[in-house]
């Protein structure tokens, strides 16, 4: 079970730590069991001939993904990545240096798939895949959040996340899976969301939310579910229904839709934006999860598909949905349903579209009005979520994924500052909980890995009195609310971008305690909407 450890102290400047060999050695996160392995098609426990299965699987991956082979061959051990990983900076375990973590996998690859490694293993650092090595894989490949910060600094462009994904795929193939990811995936592909939230509970939760908003604002903001013929299908992380502070972001989306007057819906069949299939490296399972979205979009006959605030959901949607599901261009002609969906979706809009792009567009066109002073008690900074920052775009302009969220935030609040440049945008530090690490049994690495982000936050707290941290990822939000107090921050300082939108947006109908002058202002908005 969890051992005692010290929460890292926040230094004035980030420094490369002195290495502490083996400080993060251990058994890794809880292992998956047959009950969770079987539905995904993985062996229920470590198979007898696991070495053979593992090597075969590596060979399979090597031929299927040429990128993996290139990444395994290309590294020259220059060391540029060593001090770029938040888990290394926070834990000081040298096996958390990206190159060292990759070498756990690479050394076995060399032994079995390269000439030199087969005949002169010692000369080229080739190693056998034995029990100790497999244990190291399990432990250290679950101390990587696949955030790809190291890849930004790699002169060869090696995508470490792909190595981590490949290693996890091999682990699953031999029956050594991670409980957290695989249990969740089972729910996602059977119930439709990571929580296992069935339709009646979801419906009840949404009704409750409608009631709450109406009580608070006097406005009947709706959260439609399974509404056939709606224009927009919103795919959002199920944490938005369930957790704090996420739900306040969901309230924000609803208010924006309401104000725009567009028809929209969510789906009880595809009620999950997150897709952990990516975390475990399984294309097949990622596709299985994504196909629920295709089915929902076809059944509900929507013309637009939109994604809520979820980091890796946006990566999967932006980068993979087109070929996985037919949302966007590029479905294979032989793929009847994807081709059908491509025809059904309205090509005048980005498909898929991020909720930030949508709100940003409405702001640009003057369709939304805000009382920015509603957020005057806040000084805000923005945490770029790794998957959004390094794997996607927004708005179709270079760096749009950095620009649009900031522009939305600045449109709804007066006080905004960025954290230190080397810790944001393409160089953003991971929250520490991404990539399938957001589980209590990994709390030590989550806290240690959060240190670099917390250091940059502490800095702007000191210099600019920042008291609000915004993220557009469900994992970041959950991770921060847990780790912030460990570094003497208020856990409630983490909010959704659309929570700030929600607080500042001026809604059509006047609220009961509105002053007359505001009523005039709102009346003019109403006329505009009616046009």
């Amino acid at each position, binding site marked *: 079970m969890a051992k005692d450890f010290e929460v890292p102290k926040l230094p004035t400047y980030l420094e490369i730590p002195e290495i502490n060999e083996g400080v993060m050695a251990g058994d890794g996160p809880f292992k998956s069991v047959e009950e969770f392995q079987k539905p995904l098609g993985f062996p229920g426990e470590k198979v007898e001939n696991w070495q053979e299965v593992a090597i075969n699987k590596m060979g399979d991956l090597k031929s299927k993904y040429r990128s993996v082979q290139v990444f395994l061959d290309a590294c020259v051990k220059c060391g540029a990545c060593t001090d770029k990983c938040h888990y290394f900076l926070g834990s000081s375990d040298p096996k958390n240096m990206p190159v060292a973590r990759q070498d756990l996998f690479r050394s076995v690859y060399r032994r079995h798939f390269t000439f030199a490694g087969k005949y002169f293993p010692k000369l080229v650092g080739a190693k056998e895949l034995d029990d100790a090595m497999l244990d190291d894989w399990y432990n250290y490949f679950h101390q990587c959040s696949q955030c790809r910060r190291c890849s930004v600094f790699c002169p060869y462009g090696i995508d470490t996340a792909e190595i981590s994904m490949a290693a996890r795929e091999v682990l699953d193939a031999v029956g050594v899976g991670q409980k957290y990811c695989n249990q969740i995936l089972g729910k996602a592909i059977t119930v439709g969301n990571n929580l296992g939230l069935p339709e009646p509970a979801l419906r009840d939760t949404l009704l409750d939310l409608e009631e709450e908003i109406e009580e608070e604002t006097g406005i009947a903001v709706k959260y439609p579910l399974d509404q056939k013929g709606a224009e927009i299908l919103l795919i959002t992380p*199920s944490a938005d229904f369930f957790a704090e502070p996420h739900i306040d972001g969901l309230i924000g989306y609803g208010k924006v839709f309401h104000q725009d007057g567009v028809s929209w819906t969510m789906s009880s069949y595809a009620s999950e934006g997150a897709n952990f299939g990516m975390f475990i490296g399984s294309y097949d399972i990622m596709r299985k999860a994504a196909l629920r979205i295709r089915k929902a979009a076809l059944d509900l006959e929507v013309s637009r598909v939109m994604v809520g605030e979820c980091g890796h959901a946006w990566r999967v949607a932006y980068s993979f949905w087109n070929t996985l599901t037919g949302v966007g261009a590029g479905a294979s002609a032989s793929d009847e349903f994807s081709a059908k969906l491509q025809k059904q979706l309205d090509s005048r809009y980005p498909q898929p579209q991020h909720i930030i792009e949508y709100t940003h567009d409405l702001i640009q066109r003057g369709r939304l009005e805000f009382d920015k002073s509603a957020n005057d008690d806040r000084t805000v900074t923005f945490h770029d979520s790794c998957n959004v920052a390094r794997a996607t775009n927004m708005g179709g302009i270079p760096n749009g994924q950095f620009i649009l969220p900031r522009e939305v935030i600045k449109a709804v609040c007066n006080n905004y500052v960025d954290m230190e440049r080397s810790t944001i945008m393409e160089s953003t530090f991971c929250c520490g909980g991404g990539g399938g690490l957001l589980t209590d049994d990994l709390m030590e690495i989550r806290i240690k890995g959060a240190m670099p982000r917390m250091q940059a936050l502490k800095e702007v707290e000191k210099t600019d009195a920042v008291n609000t941290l915004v993220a557009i990822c469900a994992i970041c939000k959950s991770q921060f609310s847990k780790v912030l107090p460990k570094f003497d921050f208020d856990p409630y300082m983490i909010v959704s971008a659309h929570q700030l939108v929600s607080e500042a947006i001026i809604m059509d109908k006047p609220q009961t305690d509105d002053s007359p002058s505001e009523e005039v202002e709102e009346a003019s908005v109403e006329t505009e909407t009616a046009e």
Partner: protein
Amino acid sequence: MADILGAEVDEEGFLVDLKDWTKEIAVEMAKGDDIDLSEEHWDVINFLRDYFEEYQIAPAVRVLTKAIGKQFGKEKGNSKYLYSLFPYGPGKQGCRFAGLPKPTGCI
């Protein structure tokens, strides 16, 4: 596998078979976390069990806080109050004591 009063629990301390739950088990689990279950704790635990019986899942945090606020007074209808009762989170710790499965996901 470990057990509490003879009922099997998983590595995170959640009941393996939800039918095994008894009040005594809840008390015993709480003791392990240095908590003496008060009437306020039981209000939450009972609500969680009722909700689960109807929907086969734990309630969303917002649903829980609202319901507790409605039934037991507005000052109790917030997550700060619930965290004061269940420091490891009303969702996770509360569910464990109530014999519910652990909520999973990006939460």
